[in-house]
């Protein structure tokens, strides 16, 4: 039996962390978290800007959903019968790349449009970037195939 892929373990741990960062922001969007706690930056400005939602959907909700999907995929990909799964590898790569690009766009908005930083958003951007890096070994799995 193939050993559990280390990169998927890393993705799972990172996705779990990212999930709670996004959940924290989402709880504030729902009015459950009170005023956002900011040590540095200006989360209130970012979170109250028109870029904090996509239509009626808060960006943080998209983050929560995205991390749940990545967590589920990586967890499934660690199970013995899916350890060599190319489909899970492909989905992890595409998902983390999509999340990374979306996050890069949000970071661009913070830097140049809103001109305020939310450290939780920055933390999420770093996490998704790391998830993408951790997903790169899936390329080899896709090429090798099984």
């Amino acid at each position, binding site marked *: 039996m193939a050993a*559990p892929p280390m990169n998927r373990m890393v993705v799972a741990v990172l996705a779990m962390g990212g999930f709670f960062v996004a959940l924290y922001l989402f709880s504030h969007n729902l009015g459950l978290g009170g005023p956002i706690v900011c040590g540095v930056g200006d989360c209130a400005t970012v979170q109250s800007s028109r870029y904090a939602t996509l239509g009626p959907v808060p960006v943080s909700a998209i983050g929560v959903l995205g991390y749940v999907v990545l967590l589920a995929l990586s967890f499934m990909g660690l199970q013995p019968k899916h350890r060599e799964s190319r489909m899970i590898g492909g989905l992890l790569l595409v998902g983390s790349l999509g999340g990374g690009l979306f996050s890069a766009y949000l970071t661009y908005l913070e830097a140049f449009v809103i001109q305020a930083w939310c450290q939780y958003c920055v933390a999420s951007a770093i996490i998704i970037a790391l998830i993408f890096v951790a997903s790169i070994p899936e390329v080899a799995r896709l090429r090798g195939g099984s």
Partner: protein
Amino acid sequence: MTKFYVILGVVAIVGIGAVGYSVTSSALGAAAMEPVEVEGLDDLTLLAEIAQGVTKGDEDAPITIIEFGDYACPGCGGFALSVKPQVELLLVETGKAKFVFYDFPITTIHPTSFLAARTARCAQDQGKFWEYHDALFRNQASWRLEASPIANFLGFGEDVGLDADEFESCVKSDRHADLVTANMRLGYELRVNSTPTIMVGRPGEFLQVPSATFQGIQEAMDRIGSPENAGGAN
């Protein structure tokens, strides 16, 4: 794999703890310290409806004296303790004018002044705005440099006879954050850029008093009251 599950579990527990703490501490009450997003403030008609000063004196008094003030501003403290009593005694109580206070916390240099303004509105909920307003200014030196002066504010509330539980629940929430934000925005629209800013006049016709002194206010009243100035300066 065991190590993996342990790490994953630790991350999950820390995450649940952090988010749970955030939500429950909010339920216990986290105080809004900063301006909030309020819809409609770009529309000046709506802004004029949302922004509300607190009036002292006869609503029908011919002249209105407006202060845009910041509770953490020493100049406002000086005005509240030395000029406002004269204004009240000689102009408000005699029916010549009414006094209206608008919140204008300058949060960039006074990080706790927005909270202070909110707490004054919480006192207003219990009908003790002016008593609490005066207490904030009277005790300004004791709290204005505190990072978290909530305990001081609760103490002032007790001193002026507010219901402690009701006041604390209001202070540790975001109640009135929209109103204070709207008042700040009104100030910006009126080109207020320092505190205390005093304006004297009647609807649609106000003069900004160059120096926040009793004499300055009286001079402005004389000018606004004279026939040649009727319908004049804005």
